[in-house]
């Protein structure tokens, strides 16, 4: 090391200058923002849940089951999503559909969000575009494990959120 580096204090002063610059600059910029004199806040924290970050448009969020025009789910209980799922979190119980062109329909469709790894393989596997992960819902906390299992009713009727993706949910 050079002698001036061995002294240690000059490096300390340089470091203190950087942090002091940040301290004074942020105090001034954020103070002006709080006083209404500046548009951008000086500090980068996003105050969740009052403010939310905009997610990319293809973010994988909570699942939903799409519907046909008749209101029935598009899902034909072919089990491709349950087979593709690496976490084995999808459980489908098939039932016979009266319409012979739609042979089966899901009597029960459960997704265990506690096991789901949000990989999106179920969406890629589905041949009829019945399951999508575009609701934009990212706060999935629950108080016990049973409340983390989503059933067919919840999956078919996702709550409408101001999507964090910033894009309208696709139909």
């Amino acid at each position, binding site marked *: 090391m050079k002698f001036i580096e061995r002294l240690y204090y000059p490096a300390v002063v340089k470091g203190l200058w950087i942090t002091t610059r940040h*301290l004074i600059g942020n105090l001034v910029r954020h103070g002006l923002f709080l006083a209404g004199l500046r548009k951008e806040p000086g500090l980068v*924290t996003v105050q969740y849940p009052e403010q939310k970050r905009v997610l990319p448009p293809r973010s994988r969020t909570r699942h939903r089951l799409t519907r046909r025009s008749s209101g029935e789910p598009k899902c034909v209980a072919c089990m491709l999503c349950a087979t593709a799922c690496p976490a084995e979190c999808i459980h489908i119980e098939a039932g016979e559909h009266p319409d012979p062109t739609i042979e089966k329909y899901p009597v029960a469709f459960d997704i265990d969000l506690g096991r789901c790894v949000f990989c999106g393989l179920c969406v890629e596997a589905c041949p009829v575009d019945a399951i999508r992960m575009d609701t934009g819902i990212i706060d999935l906390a629950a108080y016990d494990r049973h409340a983390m299992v989503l059933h067919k009713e919840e999956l078919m009727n996702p709550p409408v959120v101001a999507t964090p993706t910033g894009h309208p949910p696709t139909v």
Partner: protein
Amino acid sequence: MSGGGYLMTAGLGWFAGKAGFMIGMVMGFAGMLGWAERKQSAVMQDRVGANRASILGFRALGLFHPIADAIKMLTKEDFVPPFADKVLHLLAPLIAAVAAMSAFAFIPFGDEIHVGGRIVPLVAVPMDLSALYVLGVVGLAIYGPFLAGAASNSKYALMGSLRAAAQLISYEVTLGLTLMGVFLVFRSLDLQAIVQAQGGALLGGWLPRWGIVLQPFGFLLFLAAAIAETKRVPFDLPEGESEIIGYFVEYSGMRFGLFMIAEFIEIVLFSALMATLFFGGWQVPGLARLALPQAAVALIQVAAFFVKVALLCAFQLLIRWTLPRFRYDQLMALGWKRLLPLSLLNLLVTAAVLAWRG
């Protein structure tokens, strides 16, 4: 003995009042430091910091977080590890906190006030050896971490307390030697007399005769030794917040809370010592020219002292959040091989200059 004689003449009431005022201010500062640590570190790092604790819907910039911390610590289980020494386990945080706080009895926070024909010096205990007593009390504070690890019946805690004790006694030496330079320059061990001696001006009335002007090198050494005594970053390997297990690993709840309070009080103590010895204490340059009534002068001086302490505390927080931590061998090498010879050199040069100037 001037200590006992003072109590006899100026009365127990004045002593109790001043001591109570000092304790109140110090505890207030320690509480504010808990908030300031989070907020100042956050603003330094371009983020907002803790701002969610609220009372009746008022969040008040996160000022209620220290209260939330206190409630959390008070409601935790009071746990003593099995087969540990119960008495020492309780005594260690008490020694740390009490030693840190009792040094404030000797720090002058103002000049004097004239009340009812009596002149009351604004020191809780005016004594002509007060600086020496403060150094002694700081030496007592070493027992806190030392006993904490020894009483915990845990090998990790023991190693942590050995590190802490070794570091503290090493930097104690530098602390004392740099202060000797200050005592030589101001020719007194009485903290109040030292502050009063910093009232004049040099260089034709422009530069106040503060300790940092007369002993700049001593101030840098004292700063390093003081931060090492408080066991803060960059010298915080004994407690090593996140990476290494410290001496208070077996402490939880209010026992740990006492250690944290003791650490914050030590920060305030060393800020107050630096303000007193190097930054003119309660002196306000140019105040004498305004010819204000005595009560206003005293008030301004007390406020000036606490403003200086606050600024020095903020400076210590700035250093804590800027610098990386020392490795333990680097820390001990710095204490013994760099700071000790430099403080001796400082003493030598100071004595030589004073002898040459007569």
